[in-house]
């Protein structure tokens, strides 16, 4: 344990004092996320709340609520579209609306009878306007509705339903995708290249004759890099919320576990590349090919729809595709490419394949 801690700290110091490693693995991904999030993020701030309203109840309470929403004083701040529920949800998905409020059948009757009623509200969790303005507005509006209904305890409760817009806030795409890329860079530039360099400079060799088991040496190196991955994840989440204004999705508690799986998998991939590379020139070449392929074919630099059809199949063999997809889903509830379970299974499967292969091909010198 003493040896592990000392080696872990040595790796940490070596990394923190390496400016290039810091820039590539920590600062660059954040800068990319910020850059893409900002330049493509304009125009989302349209004035006014675009609210869809579906009225399924004809009772006096509903009529009163509709009247308030249609009143001239409200018209200044909201553009109201009245239609049926299905059509409105479609518009929300197309990005034309910020939120959809449904006044369900029996609303008046049941509240009058003292029964609590769930009022469905659709919103897009990946859009700041939708979540902030749209959902926020409907929440406070329904609070007032409770006053109007003079119901105490409050009988109208909000049933929040998230709907993914086809056209989402670009930052919602870029922030988690860049976090995925950051894990890739941690693996190829933050792991493979320094390891090969340590091997060439014969540092690994010196450790090989110290009274250390291979396991301790590897655990300390992998452990430190995974720590970097976790720090990165926390920085990314903070940056996304505080600077890019993203709202975290309902599965935000899965961000760290998914990022952890991603970090371990890609750091192991880094070890695998190092094991296969006889020289640092070879490592640089392999790292660049892997990096280039993954960056552009994994649907992380731009949305997968922009990939030419001919290249689409390549997307499925890029491990980063699955990590970025999973991170988008859990961070902001972005519309999935694959079910989350598939993403996790692919990453875990890759890890299980890489570990024995890496051990097989590993060389200290």
């Amino acid at each position, binding site marked *: 344990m003493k040896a592990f*801690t000392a*080696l872990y700290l040595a790796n940490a110091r070596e990394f923190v004092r390496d400016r290039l490693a810091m820039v590539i693995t920590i600062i660059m991904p954040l800068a990319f996320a910020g850059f893409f999030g900002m330049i493509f993020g304009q125009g989302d701030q349209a004035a006014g709340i675009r609210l869809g309203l579906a009225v399924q109840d004809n009772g006096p309470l509903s009529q009163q609520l509709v009247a308030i929403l249609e009143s001239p004083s409200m018209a200044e701040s909201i553009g109201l579209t009245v239609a049926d529920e299905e059509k409105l949800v479609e518009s929300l998905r197309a990005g034309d609306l910020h939120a959809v409020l449904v006044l369900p059948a029996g609303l008046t009757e049941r509240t009058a009878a003292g029964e609590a009623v769930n009022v469905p509200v659709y919103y897009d969790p990946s859009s700041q306007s939708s979540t902030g303005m749209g959902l926020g507005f409907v929440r406070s509006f329904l609070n007032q509705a409770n006053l109007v209904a003079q119901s105490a305890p409050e009988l109208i409760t909000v049933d929040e339903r998230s709907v993914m817009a086809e056209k989402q806030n670009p930052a919602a795409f870029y922030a988690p995708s860049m976090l995925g890329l950051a894990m890739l860079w941690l693996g190829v530039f933050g792991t493979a290249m320094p390891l090969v360099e340590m091997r060439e400079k014969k540092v690994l060799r010196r450790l090989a004759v110290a009274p250390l088991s291979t396991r301790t040496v590897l655990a300390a190196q992998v452990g430190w890099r995974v720590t970097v991955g976790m720090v990165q994840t926390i920085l990314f989440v903070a940056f996304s919320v505080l600077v890019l204004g993203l709202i975290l999705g309902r599965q935000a508690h899965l961000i760290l576990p998914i990022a952890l799986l991603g970090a371990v998998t890609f750091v192991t991939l880094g070890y695998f590349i190092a094991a296969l590379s006889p020289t640092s020139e070879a490592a640089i070449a392999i790292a660049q090919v892997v990096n280039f392929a993954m960056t552009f074919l994994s649907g992380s630099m731009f949305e997968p729809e922009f990939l030419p059809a001919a290249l689409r199949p390549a997307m499925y063999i890029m491990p980063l595709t699955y990590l970025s997809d999973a991170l988008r889903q859990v961070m902001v509830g972005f519309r999935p490419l694959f079910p989350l379970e598939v993403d996790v299974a692919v990453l875990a499967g890759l890890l299980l394949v890489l570990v024995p292969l890496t051990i097989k091909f590993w060389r200290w010198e």
Partner: protein
Amino acid sequence: MNEMALQVTDLRKSYGDLKAVDGVTFSVATGEVFGILGPNGAGKTTTVECIEGLRRPDSGEIVVLGRAFGADDPEFRRRLGIQLQSTGLYPKLTVREIMRLFTAFYDDTLETDALLDLVGLRERQNAPTAKLSGGQAQRLSLALALLNKPELVFLDEPTTGLDPQARRAIWDLVHDLRREGRTVVLTTHYMEEAEELCDRVAVMDHGHIIELGTPRELIAKYFRETAIEVDQVDGLTAEGLAALPAVGQVTEENGRFVVFSAAVPKTMSGLFDWAQAHSLELGQMVVRQATLEDVFLKITGRRIR
């Protein structure tokens, strides 16, 4: 003290067609300073690194501190001190941090400050290892080999490329180790180093041990004579010198003749008589003991460097 710290029997290691180590057998007694002397490419490093478990020998038996040595045996490694000929350290860690790191690998270690003083790196303790000079890096590497108070120490060319002062400092450390009764195996291609430090020397060339003994034994075996170095001057020839009384052999070195004599007074008086008879003005003369260098030259017909 008869106990063996190291026994190597018929060790062999080839790289393709090249037999880097070709049937090497020797043993090292506890408390002994044992030297492996040979030119570059002789197979010294290959031999030592097979013993250290860094390279897998093709065949042969190696017994270290009384047991067959497996390459990956952390517990056993605690008893060894190893300085590699080519090695590196975390370049951005400081000297002190590196010492601390390696200290954490062992239970019983020398105190860091004392060790820094011992190898003269106290002033450089906060320098990143990448910024050390060759001699300083070598001394740090030596400190790492010594910090666990090892029973058996391997030093692979510890002074190659160092200036005389740095070399002297390392020699002093090896003398200390010997006084403390530790066993040392060191390789070198410096004759004077082997003579100065080693109780016994194996002379190695082309993967073979061609001679093995104490420096004195080797010199006595090949040179019962004393060396007389004579400046070359006009009229003085190797043939003329070889004809002098008690002379065994004459070689030329750096503009001087080296005359090996079994009886210095006889040879000298013969030389003076001859010079007078031929009206020769003799240059400088030095009388010295034969060295391992002379031995190597005699056995292999080549100079070691």
